[in-house]
């Protein structure tokens, strides 16, 4: 009980850190995921192959390995001096983008065929069809899986704590090093994660209701 009260600033920083890293990598994953999903359904074979390779490789790589790549390979060959926060965002965002891509792609296939056909018969190009007709309608079916993808992302962000990003796992390590009983720390950290995951699922349920239409 006292652990929380004694170390309220640390818990607050960790909580905000988890929120920040989750939000920034969710944004990156969303942008990349939609882009790659567009690649995967495009009429251009090399882009399709690129999209497939992207998803296959990233989905079958352990996230910890991606963190190692981000922290040891990227600074060596691409750019130096990025903060751990940026590198962790890259690793989490790239990993999650493959899951977002698959969710968007299956959302695209749930849009009734007539919609795309009608758009084509109006003379729309591929990118117009996708942008103006199919993706807006796919949004509705994509939202429930996206909610669980982002909940998984929140949980995965704990790994960033092991790579010296300030967030909740980091706090749990710090307090354990100071000799507090792990059971209490575990309980409070678990509660903090529950708060975030419930907030995400609540937010997405709200979105779902706003976007839902009677069919």
């Amino acid at each position, binding site marked *: 009980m006292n652990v929380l009260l004694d170390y309220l600033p640390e818990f607050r920083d960790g909580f905000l850190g988890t929120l920040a890293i989750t939000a920034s990598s969710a944004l990156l994953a969303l942008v990349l995921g939609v882009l790659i999903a567009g690649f995967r359904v495009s009429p251009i074979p090399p882009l399709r192959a690129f999209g497939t390779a992207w998803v296959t490789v990233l989905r079958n790589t352990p996230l910890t390995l991606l963190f*190692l790549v981000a922290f040891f390979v990227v600074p060596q060959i691409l750019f130096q001096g990025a903060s751990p926060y940026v590198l962790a965002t890259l690793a989490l965002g790239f990993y999650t983008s493959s899951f977002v891509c698959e969710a968007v792609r299956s959302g695209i296939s749930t849009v009734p065929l007539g919609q795309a056909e009608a758009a084509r018969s109006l003379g729309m190009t591929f990118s117009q069809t996708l942008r103006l007709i199919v993706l807006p309608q796919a949004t509705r079916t994509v939202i429930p899986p996206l*909610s*669980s993808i982002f909940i998984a992302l929140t949980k995965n962000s704990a*790994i960033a704590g092991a790579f010296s990003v300030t967030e909740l796992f980091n706090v749990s390590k710090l307090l354990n090093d100071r000799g507090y009983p792990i059971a209490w720390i575990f309980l409070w950290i*678990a509660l903090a994660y529950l708060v975030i995951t419930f907030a995400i699922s609540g937010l997405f*349920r709200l979105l779902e209701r706003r976007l839902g239409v009677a069919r």
Partner: protein
Amino acid sequence: MSGASVLYDVPGPKAKARNRVYAVLGTLAVLGLIAFVVLRLSAKGQLQPEVWNIFNYAGVRTSIRDGVLTTLQVFAVAAVLSLALGALLAVARLSDRKPIRWFATGFVELFRAVPLLITIYALWVILLSNRDSLGLTGSQPQFWALVVGLMVYNGSVQAEVLRAGINSVPKGQKEAAYALGMSKTQVMTTVLIPQAVRAMLPTIISQLVVTLKDTSLGYIITYEELLYKARLMSGNIIVNGNDTYIPVIIVVGSIYVAMCLALSALANWIERRGRRAKTGIGMAEAAEPVTATDAMEAAGAAPDGAAGTKG
């Protein structure tokens, strides 16, 4: 691709020409990206033969082999235990006795909501501080923390998968079994679970892929599995004044991807086989088990989860 191709017309001569231009541009862009990475790699001297020659040393090979074997060992133990726990929890959640049902629900919701790493770390700390009384030596605290953490988390997920499977068995099956005079245990073990497992096998195996990937969390609690060995090796082996992170990570990454792909291929194969069969209930999809089950739960988990924090 049949669903996707509806997004664009069958290309005419003009569109064909345009698509060809885009294809060339796209290929160039992808190749350019690859060339850029290769150029950067060679600029940093990572494509020198000496750097890659390290994989000819017996020590490096033994180290990688040991790492793979350790990872597979953790995976095997954790997979078996998590499946057993999953079956137990699934049955407990469907039990008629309220305390059992509540306990199982709380357990599942708590450990599914907490990041696996936090669970593993807490277990590690507990085992490490009690290792004398538990008689654990060497790297055994790490091993058991990793295995028990994986068991608890994946067991909870498998329980949800299995429960969804049991619920998807048509009601007539259960009623017919009761009508034949079977006991509750008999109905569960001889009628419901076999059909549930058969329907959910692709999802179960996809979750095993997640288990395999998550064994890499052992790296963080300094357990000497493949990733930790790789990190240790690449920091220690200095070639041309550089550490060897890049070649080692490329090789180890390929090993991980190959192992996971093999397991996913098995899931897809079973799913295709199950679709061909006309009998029984439909097969679940092999893709993204966690996401799929979480999606189901995200809609209806709020009250259960709140109980979970107390449990």
